[in-house]
């Protein structure tokens, strides 16, 4: 991989050359080439009972054999013995933390003893990185974030984001084992990685006691990377197996959003169902902060004790917090139901008008990581069917009626 080629990585889609096959050793060689090129390789690994995204030191850090079970409010890992390294669905976090960090300095101003001010801009971008094992929905999520931040003409253009994206080589891996929370097939973002968006798209196939990786380059940088590692042309059997895996993975998905989701939400601004959601939702913000496309942040200023240094920091925020809608005199969205409505309506409906696409890529994280298992697909179904739904997890006896220290307007009667 050359430095020049690398500059074109991440956001460039070159022609898609043929499919090639890498062995286990080929994958290790690919890893070594990336490391030698000075790339920090970030990818899935097991930590604290989940598959998370973190810097990897070798292919041995990948979650070989591990399977995940994900459902509403539920995540469990099970060790396995198979040779597959990518037999899991989406990791706990999305990739946004690497391109739109949870906390980023925007500037620091210093006043010296003469009273002169000097201003330092955002933190320098990190060294070039490779994102290894990007799931197709997460690849689509990076595309959604690009639409928000990377376009120089966009209202929210963020040069620091654009640099982090430019310097990230993306290696996507198609999904063969979706979780119960996944609905990428309905959103058209997976389960197979398409020919665009990634520098390299991999499909992992298990052949007996070993895994092989079918690879296709999606950019000149990706092509250069594949050139640098041992590979053979893919066989007809490989092509067939790859298609079969994609079909089976799509067929295995149990959740979906209707195509009319945008309209359903647009028509539901006044709906009795928001009170039903308010009774179950904790307004904890886990859904938005787990979502790979939710980009909202707040800006906070701090100073040193002597007042000589001031720093402005951007931190992830959530539309589920009260401060998020706080304007002069109070918060616009006091009630939990109003906050949930804001989130789901932006995500599935007004996002189209704002950015020309859905804000949801069907990764299912908001479903899995909601502590009480509130399910975006079930809520849309309930809104469409015009009737409240039952909490899918708590038995009726314990189902929340109305809660909290303060009684809220949109809570149902106790």
């Amino acid at each position, binding site marked *: 991989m050359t430095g020049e080629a690398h500059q074109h990585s991440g956001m460039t889609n070159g022609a898609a050359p043929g499919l090639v096959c890498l062995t286990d050793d080929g994958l290790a060689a690919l890893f070594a080439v990336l490391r030698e090129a000075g790339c920090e390789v970030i990818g899935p690994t097991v930590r604290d009972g989940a598959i998370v995204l973190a810097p990897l030191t070798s292919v041995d850090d990948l979650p070989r054999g591990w399977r995940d079970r994900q459902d509403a409010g539920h995540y469990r890992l099970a060790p396995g013995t198979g040779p597959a390294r990518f037999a899991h669905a989406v990791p706990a976090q999305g990739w946004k933390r690497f391109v739109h960090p949870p906390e980023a300095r925007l500037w620091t101003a210093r006043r010296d003893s003469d009273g002169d001010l000097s201003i330092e801009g955002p933190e320098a971008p990190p060294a070039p990185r490779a994102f290894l094992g990007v799931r197709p929905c997460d690849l689509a999520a990076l595309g959604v974030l690009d639409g928000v931040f990377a376009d120089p003409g966009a209202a929210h253009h963020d040069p620091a984001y654009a640099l982090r994206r430019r310097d990230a080589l993306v290696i996507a891996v198609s999904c063969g084992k979706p979780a119960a929370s996944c609905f990428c097939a309905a959103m058209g973002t997976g389960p197979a990685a398409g020919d665009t968006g990634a520098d390299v798209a991999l499909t992992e196939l298990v052949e007996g006691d070993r895994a092989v990786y079918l690879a296709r380059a999606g950019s000149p940088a990706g092509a250069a990377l594949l050139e640098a590692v041992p590979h053979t042309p893919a066989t007809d059997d490989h092509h067939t197996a790859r298609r079969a895996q994609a079909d089976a993975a799509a067929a295995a998905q149990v959740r979906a959003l209707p195509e009319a989701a945008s309209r359903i939400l647009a028509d539901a601004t006044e709906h009795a169902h928001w009170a039903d959601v308010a009774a179950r939702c904790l307004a*904890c913000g886990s859904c938005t902060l787990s979502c790979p496309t939710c980009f909202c942040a707040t800006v906070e200023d701090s100073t040193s004790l*002597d007042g000589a240094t001031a720093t402005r920091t951007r931190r992830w925020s959530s539309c589920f917090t009260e*401060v998020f809608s706080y304007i002069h005199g109070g918060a616009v969205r006091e009630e939990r139901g109003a906050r949930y409505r804001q989130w789901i309506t932006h995500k599935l409906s007004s996002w189209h008008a704002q950015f020309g696409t859905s804000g949801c890529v069907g990764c299912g994280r908001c479903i899995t990581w909601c502590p009480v298992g509130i399910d975006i697909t079930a809520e849309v179904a309930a809104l469409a069917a015009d009737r409240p739904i039952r909490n899918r997890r708590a038995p009726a006896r314990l189902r929340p009626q109305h809660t909290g220290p303060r009684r809220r307007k949109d809570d149902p009667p106790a």
Partner: protein
Amino acid sequence: MSTDGSDAPRRPKLAVWKFASCDGCQLSLLDCEDELLDVVGAVEIAYFLEATRATVPGPYDVSLVEGSITTAHDLKRLQKIRRQSKVLVTIGACATSGGIQALKSMADTEDYIRAVYARPDFIKTLDTSTPIAHHVPVDVELRGCPIDRGQLLHVLTALIQGRQPRLPNYSQCVECKRAGTVCVMVAKGEPCLGPVTQAGCGNLCPRVGRGCYGCFGPAEGVNTRALAGHLRAGPAQGGSGLDGPATRHLFHTFNANAPGFREEGQRHG
């Protein structure tokens, strides 16, 4: 802020007061090892018995108040402190909600006194342990058992610089997600009060794989009933399978008397 020269601005006078509490929160100030000298340079420590016996009479620019009100005498003392303080900051779960000792508000104080003291007739105490804000106006509230020293420094800095302090009132989950911590409730079924607990501790407990036990007290807009319902649901329903007493104990610790936690605990005998 310069301290030499007669035309230099006067350093704000800081006082630290203690009511029913364990001293842990005031010690957080002494714990600011790296910043302690800067703090001492920026303020005049006028009253802080944990640090120095020398005291300067009021009025005070900033008073940090630790502890809850449990005796009639303390109440009088508090009112005097309020009159002498421009800005009053409560520090810690005792001062902001009544502390773990507020459990006595839900029991028979006489029983406790007889059980603990050899000479119950020597003990003069109220039947309740109440937060400072129940008795006098409070300007800034620092939560936690103990408080977070980063937040303490933030508040002192803001007050010295004449800025509004910025303290989050949203949930602990926000800190978890920013930190990239794996949710212990979803991934392990550990009971966690994080969704209804105010952020600010720096994600201490979930970061080491245990549930939050709510020492920062209720977040804004909390839905304790939905969380309690989930905690009590069996693992097959995705819950933690807690029984009534375990659920009550979870809500009734350091912030047993905080609105939301108090009522939720009481619902689970």
